[in-house]
């Protein structure tokens, strides 16, 4: 568990250093994730070593955004002022993204002869 956690933190740290060093808008942990994915392909056995700890972390992923969520009490004014606009934006854009994404996938799969059942 310690080597796995150290590996994860090391990639996050490297991601933060690169993101800040180059002034990127990409969050450090996202770069860390991409880096770790690349490392899995290069270092045999690394994925198996990290997997149990990573799965433990991800099993409780939704707990981790409770503290940020509670922060909404400090922003009630914003949500009240823009409530209708935000509600409409979320509803329409989520429905549109699901529909457009699924239709595009199905259309390209049909065009390229990519079948579901194999």
């Amino acid at each position, binding site marked *: 568990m310690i080597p796995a956690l150290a590996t994860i933190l090391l990639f996050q740290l490297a991601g933060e250093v690169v993101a800040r060093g180059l002034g990127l808008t990409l969050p450090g942990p996202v770069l860390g994730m991409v880096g770790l994915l690349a490392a899995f392909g290069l270092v045999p056995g690394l994925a198996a070593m990290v997997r149990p700890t*990573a799965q433990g972390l991800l099993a409780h992923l939704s*707990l981790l955004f409770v503290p*940020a969520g*509670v922060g909404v009490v400090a*922003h009630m004014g914003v949500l009240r002022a823009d409530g209708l606009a935000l509600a409409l934006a979320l509803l329409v854009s989520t429905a549109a993204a699901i529909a457009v994404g699924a239709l595009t996938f199905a259309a390209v799969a049909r065009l390229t002869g990519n079948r579901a059942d194999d």
Partner: protein
Amino acid sequence: MTDAALIWSYLSREPLLWLTATLLAYWVGDIAFRASGRQPFINPVLIAVLVLALVLWSTGTAYPAYFEGAKFVHFMLGPATVALAVPMYGNLRAVRRAALPMLAALLAGSFTAVFSALAIAWAMGVEPSVLASLAPKSATAPVAIGISEAMGGAPTVTAVLVLLTGIIGAVIATPLLNALGLTDWRARGFAVGVAAHGIGTARAFQVHETAGAFAGIGMGLNAVLTALVAPWAMGFFN
């Protein structure tokens, strides 16, 4: 009387109280979620947030005081984001086999999610800092919070908008995709993962295993793409 006051003044200064309260509130939410038969609109995070907001309000506790305790949980968002590399690596084979449809659906879904949300909110007069909080709402929470922070949005507003997006996606996906007549579980799952991240993915797993696996891939890929698309899209709405 002084004893109770002394204990409270100790507790309100130390992180222990609010760290414990955060876990307890989530536990309550999780029990409610299970008791409902895992209904997508009974979301454990939303329940935990409501419970904690009520407790903070009734004890007159300011958010920064609460966050002193809760920051230990919040910190784990970063490592959890890095850990997403593990399920993505496990799905590489499926990604290679359906690479073209996935790439097309990822681009179409991600751009639609970011641009349509920004366009609607912008047209209704929402200010830029709130737009920055809204733009990454289809990405998984830890990533969306990071993107929002980097663009000058409010991470806490983003956290709530991400949650609501996930719940909306989980609730509407099945009726919407049925109405469109789509029967390819890969297409259905992938689109839900791109648009509605982890909550949508959990819902997809309930409906069909293939849909769930593809939703997970969609969520992972869109976490990376949103980090690129959202800051760029913001440039059009300033």
